[in-house]
């Protein structure tokens, strides 16, 4: 096993162990809002703040729910974001290309900070 595989295996084992002992338990008691907020915080980056300017939080939430990106328990379905990538318009933001759906997620993550 090379160093990279070794690190990957040990990291995965550590993650599994901590998830089952702590995070997993916490997640069970999270409300819809807490769960969604937690996921949006995890993906937020400072540069996404400018996305707030042209977007409305409620409209983003509605759109992402309608697209089945956010489910009824407040989970962001990243597989669904990928599924839509094929048909989504590709948009440039801060020079990088994004799918329109993921930009909505990042815009919502920025609204979530306030």
């Amino acid at each position, binding site marked *: 096993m090379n160093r990279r595989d070794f690190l990957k295996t040990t990291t995965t084992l550590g993650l599994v162990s901590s998830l089952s002992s702590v995070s997993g338990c916490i997640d069970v008691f999270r409300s819809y809002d807490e769960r969604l907020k937690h996921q949006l915080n995890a*993906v937020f980056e400072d540069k996404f703040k400018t996305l707030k300017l042209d977007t409305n939080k409620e409209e983003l939430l509605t759109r992402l729910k309608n697209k089945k990106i956010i489910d009824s328990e407040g989970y962001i379905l990243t597989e669904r974001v990928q599924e839509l990538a094929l048909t989504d318009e590709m948009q440039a933001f801060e020079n990088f*290309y994004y799918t329109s759906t993921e930009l909505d*997620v990042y815009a919502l993550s920025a609204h979530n900070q306030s």
Partner: protein
Amino acid sequence: MFIKDTQNKEYDLVIIGAGAAGITIAKKMAEEGKVKTLLLETGGFEFSETAWNLSNVEAEGHFDASHFRNHSQRIFGGTTSVWSNMSSMLEERSFINKEWPIGFDEILPFYDEAHDMIQLRDGAVDHVYAKFTERDVIQYRPYYKSYKRSTRFGEEFRDILSNSKNVDVLLNSTCIKVHQDNNQISNLTIRPTFQDKPDFTVKGKHYVVACGGIGNPRLLLQSSVASNLPVGNYLMEHPHYIDAGHIEVNIETLDPVIYTSKTIHAFALSDQYCIDNNVLNASISFKDHVSENRPLLGHKQECFTSIASMRTEMPALKENKVALTDELDNWGLPKVKVTLNFGYTDQAKDLWKVFAKELLVANAGRLTEFSHEKLYIIGGGHLMGSTRMGNNMKSSVVDGNCKVHGINNLYIAGSSIFSASAAANPTYSIVAFSLRLSEHLQTQVFKS
């Protein structure tokens, strides 16, 4: 063995030029041990400005003259004395599309031995590309390098030629004219490169011109050989758009297909996509030195973050060419002018977007916009196609066996025979085609 003069010996085979192609063929003749062969080279073992000046050209278009000079070395080993050793096979697509007059299966078996000669890392033959997504649009298609820093043919194969009983090597000797007598080459006029000695004649039964992408058409044009053929036309290069943008590559998605990290990582378009959309190929390379967790498709994923450079295939255009001018050089030979224009930045920009979209769809990464306004475009020094292979005498110079149309005993080796360039560095294929030509000479031409 290395000789000082030929003593008027007549050879079975005379090879003009000791670069990747010429040395490969001479090595095969040495291993076979029967065909009396002479390998001629303008330069010697050491770099010489005098010899190198014989590669001077005038230039028009995207490059200045130094570009062509830099990639036409006159030294034993040729341009492998300076190459960066990046290797990738040609793509099957251009063979399927009949751009080549032969099938891909006719060249594929020779990559194995070429792989060993260049001392490439494992994978260059059997892990040429890998799919990482269900969609057949882009692939992981890396460039392989050798175990060493670079394989210099002049150093690697000097001993085998030095010890050969049937292969003579004459350095510091420049072929200035190939003499055609009807449908035969009768002899060559050779000029000592450094000494003020008279020209002399070399005779062979068969000849291989292996002087590089500029040198091959140059010699034929200066000799008025094959003047009924489009010698010098259809010159190709690989436009390199250096630091055309940045890329984030999802490590988890790519991990299963990255066979070894000892490669130059790259994505390329699939053959099928190029065929379906009638586009030429392109390749985007990236590095794996830095990784960060980046937001990708709604969550943070571990990605390599790297600058991204793009190289694109060029079409074979008649107006890109090597041609003679009316002026004479110091040796009294017509000067050469090279005209080469890329003109493919718009296509490169469009294809970049295809890569950007497909990386997202595959959860494989993210590209920035193509930084076309501040683009730094260079060539790879890959001078190809100037005596291209084909069946039609109006649009090609050599046939499927690298023999010049209409001349019974003249062959051409090197990247000048390429009918299509793919998005692949050429040397690996130069060696493979030279091995194929060697086999043809040994089994068909010298079989008796």
